[in-house]
């Protein structure tokens, strides 16, 4: 059973097989977050788009013509009605009526949250890359030492 245990291990003490396994594990852990990172960035971009849309929903624009999506490929022409409130999806099936400005504040909160998550993921990957380098180096050294010892043993 594997879990992430935050313990400090002196990498120099580990035998070659454990080092090889560790190196492989770190390599996997570095590649996995790439897709999570992508998702986070995509979500942040979607919120940015929402923000831009909300900018248009203001009192000057009432009555302006717009296209309203009925399905992902079917739009009908309509007019901007009430610019005073929008329906905000806050998750798990709940919706709230808010002003466009309040909705923009919500969107900003979400974007900030995503940005901090993106930062956390980047930091974690950077640390894993550093560990990967250290483990690779120690592994190379040990393999070289072992090769030298075998060569010396063969000569005697």
């Amino acid at each position, binding site marked *: *059973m594997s879990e992430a245990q935050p313990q400090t291990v002196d990498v120099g003490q580990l035998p070659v097989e454990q080092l090889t396994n560790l190196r492989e594990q770190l390599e996997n852990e570095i590649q996995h977050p790439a897709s999570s990172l992508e998702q986070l960035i995509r979500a942040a971009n979607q919120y940015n788009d929402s923000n831009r849309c909300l900018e248009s929903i203001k009192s000057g624009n009432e009555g302006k013509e717009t296209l309203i999506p009925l399905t992902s490929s079917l739009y009908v022409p309509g007019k901007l009605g009430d610019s005073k409130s929008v*329906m905000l999806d*806050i*998750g*798990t*099936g*709940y*919706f*709230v*009526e808010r002003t466009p400005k309040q909705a923009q504040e919500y969107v900003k909160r979400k974007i900030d949250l995503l940005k901090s998550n993106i930062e956390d993921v980047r930091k974690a990957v950077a640390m894993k890359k550093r560990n990967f380098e250290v483990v690779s180096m120690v592994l190379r050294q040990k393999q070289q030492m072992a090769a030298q010892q075998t060569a010396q043993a063969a000569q005697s």
Partner: protein
Amino acid sequence: DMSTSMQQLPPDLQVEAKALEALQAEFQKLLPAQQRLLTQKQENEMVMKELELLEPETPVYKQEGPTLLKVSVDQAKQNIANRLRFITEQIADIEDKIKALKEKEQQHRLKAVEIQQRMRAEQEKAAGSAE
């Protein structure tokens, strides 16, 4: 592969190896469930935070199938609080199960080490008496 190398082990070690395999399978079943619950907990906590920012008369709607039903801010908070309570209980339940599995795993590992040590001691004794 696992089964041929297992057959090379003496029978009492095979028992421990099989037990450890079974425990690992159980563990693999619990992990995704735990992850799902933790995600749900986080989602509902975020919704609760948003609800707490609302003035009490703010119109809130709950999605029921294809419709939106109007509820009060209080009703929504109540509902989310109930959900969070339920989810927290389920998380505690799974954590207990995982803890029990880990204890069993530890027991079997110790037993396996014990068996291996005993085998080694017997081999040494046999080598000793052969001289």
